[in-house]
């Protein structure tokens, strides 16, 4: 058994015109994947039954804002990209930064960006995204 602490995670991102690279200064990420269901219950069934259908995901990447940190500008400014053809790529790592290992990767669109400056606290930027197309899980 090997548990993992959150600080060993990382985020890689590219805006559609480059290659995946680590975003320096991330402090959290989350991803929620949802599968829709189709009701296949028929006459004679006693219990309702379903089959899985469309899969989609959404989540958040949170940054300790540093204007000089590699990769931050590309992530937080992707929100103002227009038109956005969902050509951005994400890879969210639970540990390490070896592509295709201990991670989830997908294409997506950043749908919200919030940057907060509060007296006595660090400036924090938060980007919310939705996935588009295939989600590849390497969490095994």
């Amino acid at each position, binding site marked *: 058994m090997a548990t993992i602490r*959150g*600080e*060993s*995670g*990382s*985020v890689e991102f590219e805006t559609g015109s480059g290659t995946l690279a*680590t975003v*320096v*200064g*991330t*402090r*959290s*990420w989350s991803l929620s994947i949802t599968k829709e269901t189709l009701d296949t219950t028929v006459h004679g069934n006693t219990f309702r039954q379903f089959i899985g259908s469309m899969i989609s995901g959404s989540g958040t990447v949170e*940054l*300790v804002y*540093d204007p000089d940190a590699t990769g931050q500008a590309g992530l937080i400014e992707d929100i103002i990209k227009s038109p956005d053809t969902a050509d951005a790529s994400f890879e969210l790592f639970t540990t390490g930064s070896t592509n295709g290992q201990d991670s989830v990767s997908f294409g997506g669109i950043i749908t919200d960006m919030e940057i907060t400056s509060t007296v*006595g606290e*660090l400036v924090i930027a938060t980007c919310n995204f939705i996935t588009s197309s295939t989600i590849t899980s390497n969490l095994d």
Partner: protein
Amino acid sequence: MAAADLNAIRATVEGRLATELANSPALPVVFNNMAYEPTPNSSWVQCLTAFGANEYLGHGLTTSGYNRIVGLTLINIFTPKGAGPGANLVIGKRIRDLYNRIIVSGVFFDAPNGPEATGSPSPEGYFQTQVRVAFEFIEEL
């Protein structure tokens, strides 16, 4: 990016005080682990800097990681006993102004607390107040 140099941070904190108190009217200032025999009925300052809690700020272990290093500087101001607080507060203002919400070499100083009179001066024979300055440094590995 590199691990924080604690001596560089200490030098940033103490250097400002040493420079200011070398200006007229100059005052003796003594730092951690330094011997000093104060002259009776004189004014002098003691500066004690300590590092405290650290915390993770971001992802990344030994590379690309951010940590918050928090410290506290205690500055004891000693002035002649029985002469009122005025001279002590004049020194206190000089010291407070040195650190009040400034950022120097990556060290973020909070608004200072004090000068606050202490009930039991140490060493005895002086009127003592204390200024407390919390600071933090963001370590970028």
